[in-house]
């Protein structure tokens, strides 16, 4: 077992005036581990994800992150430059809607290459070579490299967004309903791709989803949220096979058998 977590969240809270977005959330995440945050719409799971990833200011609590040099600072204590470095290279963020994570009017190759340029890669041939390689890893034909994402199907756009995020070899990926907007047939392909890339690259992942089957397939651990609070957490198998909290029992009982 790796001994030190890559991320520690302590007593995290987000309030909008008196309304609670999320409160009293604490957990650790280790390298190579996939943590699923589940709950229905409005349960606070996306708010939590955005607070952790620095896309939203938190009201109180701590978010500690293991830097590549071994330091473990609170993200709020980082300089603007360090934070930008994390966002551009060390982290990825896969949005539900690929249009939120892609530049829709530049080519697929440039979408992938842009993140490489942000980490200092300047050689055009190298960038194009790496971009082609990543397109093939996400099963996009090399001849589509100069096409814009607007010409891609939903599933292809999502796979392109994944390639764009992974090209810089990040250590932590945030995912917000990555298969939420896709047809079921397309979902399986994206899920399979995520599953194999996550284990191949030994990524730490926090994935927000309302789909328990997706959580079962991708995650080892799970947090169940309701009204901004964690109501249950543990091993994914355990939470789904032996749900303890009334709300988790309701979620599990609501899945149709197949």
């Amino acid at each position: 077992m790796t001994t030190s977590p890559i991320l520690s969240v302590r007593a995290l809270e987000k309030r909008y005036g008196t309304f609670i977005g999320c409160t009293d959330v604490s957990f650790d995440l280790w390298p190579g581990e996939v943590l699923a945050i589940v709950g229905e719409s409005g349960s606070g799971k996306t708010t939590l994800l955005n607070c952790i990833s620095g896309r939203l200011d938190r009201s109180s609590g701590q978010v500690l992150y293991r830097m590549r040099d071994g330091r473990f600072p609170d993200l709020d204590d980082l300089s603007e430059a360090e934070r930008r470095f994390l966002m551009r290279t060390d982290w990825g963020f896969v949005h539900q809607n690929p249009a939120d994570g892609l530049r829709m009017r530049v080519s697929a190759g440039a979408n992938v290459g842009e993140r490489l340029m942000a980490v200092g890669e300047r050689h055009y041939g190298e960038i194009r070579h790496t971009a082609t390689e990543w397109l093939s890893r996400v099963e996009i034909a090399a001849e589509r490299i100069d096409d814009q994402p607007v010409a891609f199907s939903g599933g292809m756009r999502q796979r392109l967004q994944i390639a764009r995020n992974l090209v810089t070899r990040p250590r932590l990926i945030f995912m917000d309903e990555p298969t939420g907007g896709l047809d079921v047939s397309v979902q399986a392909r994206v899920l399979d791709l995520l599953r194999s890339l996550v284990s191949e690259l030994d990524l730490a992942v926090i994935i927000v989803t309302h789909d328990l089957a997706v959580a079962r397939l991708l995650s080892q651990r799970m947090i169940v949220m309701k009204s901004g609070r964690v109501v249950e957490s543990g091993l994914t198998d355990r939470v789904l096979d032996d749900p303890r909290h009334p709300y988790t029992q309701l979620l599990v009982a609501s899945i149709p058998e197949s």
Partner: protein
Amino acid sequence: MTFHQPTGSMPQSALLSASGVAKSFTMHLRGGIRLPVVEDVGFALHPGECLVLGGPSGVGKSSILRMVYGNYAIDGGQILVRNRRTGELDDLGGGDPRLILDLRRDSIGYVSQFLRAVPRVSALDIVAEPLISRGTDPDEARERATALLDRLHLPSALFGLPPATFSGGEKQRVNIARGFITDHPVLLLDEPTASLDAANRDVVIALIKEKLQAGTGVLGIFHDQPVRDAVVTRTIDVSSFSARKKIEAVTEPSSERHGSSQQTSASLQEEQFRGPQR
């Protein structure tokens, strides 16, 4: 639960031990009724031993396997598993997710009744995956997976296909191969031969015997009498742990109502807890 020390009464060699284990389900969607399953479960499993969980349907045999694998939380008592790497007994029953994942990777394996197929992943890769995740070279892992699937008479034309469209027996053979390919010191088997023909049943018997000879401890449920007779070292009667029987005997004095109430409990449990296990 904060048990960290092995109990004094347990022999040093045990691979797995349970003591005083109790399990019930509280069903909040049914007015919070509490459904007791087992109580005071105690046994130890030693190397090279095949311990069979016996007793009628619904008495809690599968529940015990799921507790021992960490899929079900326990209400009380202790479940210890010997960690293959450290040689220490670890407190699996305590429910720490990372400890359970660690024990599952190296120390305790499980062949469930049903294969949980992953879309688009081939039968061969499903079988090879436990080896690859433990660091075996992928080509070597696939070679060993091929050999095992051959031995279980799975047509080689199926190796590259995802098992979603396979027959029940074909899926089960993929599942068995996945469970038997590694050398976990403890192996849990939940009716591994339920949908197999005689020839493949014999292969599974041979595989189990090889495991036992190599020192693996097997804890299993076998409804198939010839299989059970061929592999069993010792049988535990799970009805002696059944919590349901006792409770109902108290609350339902009439024998006629006793029977129907038992059925209701069992079907409630299935509806609630078997649903998500696809």
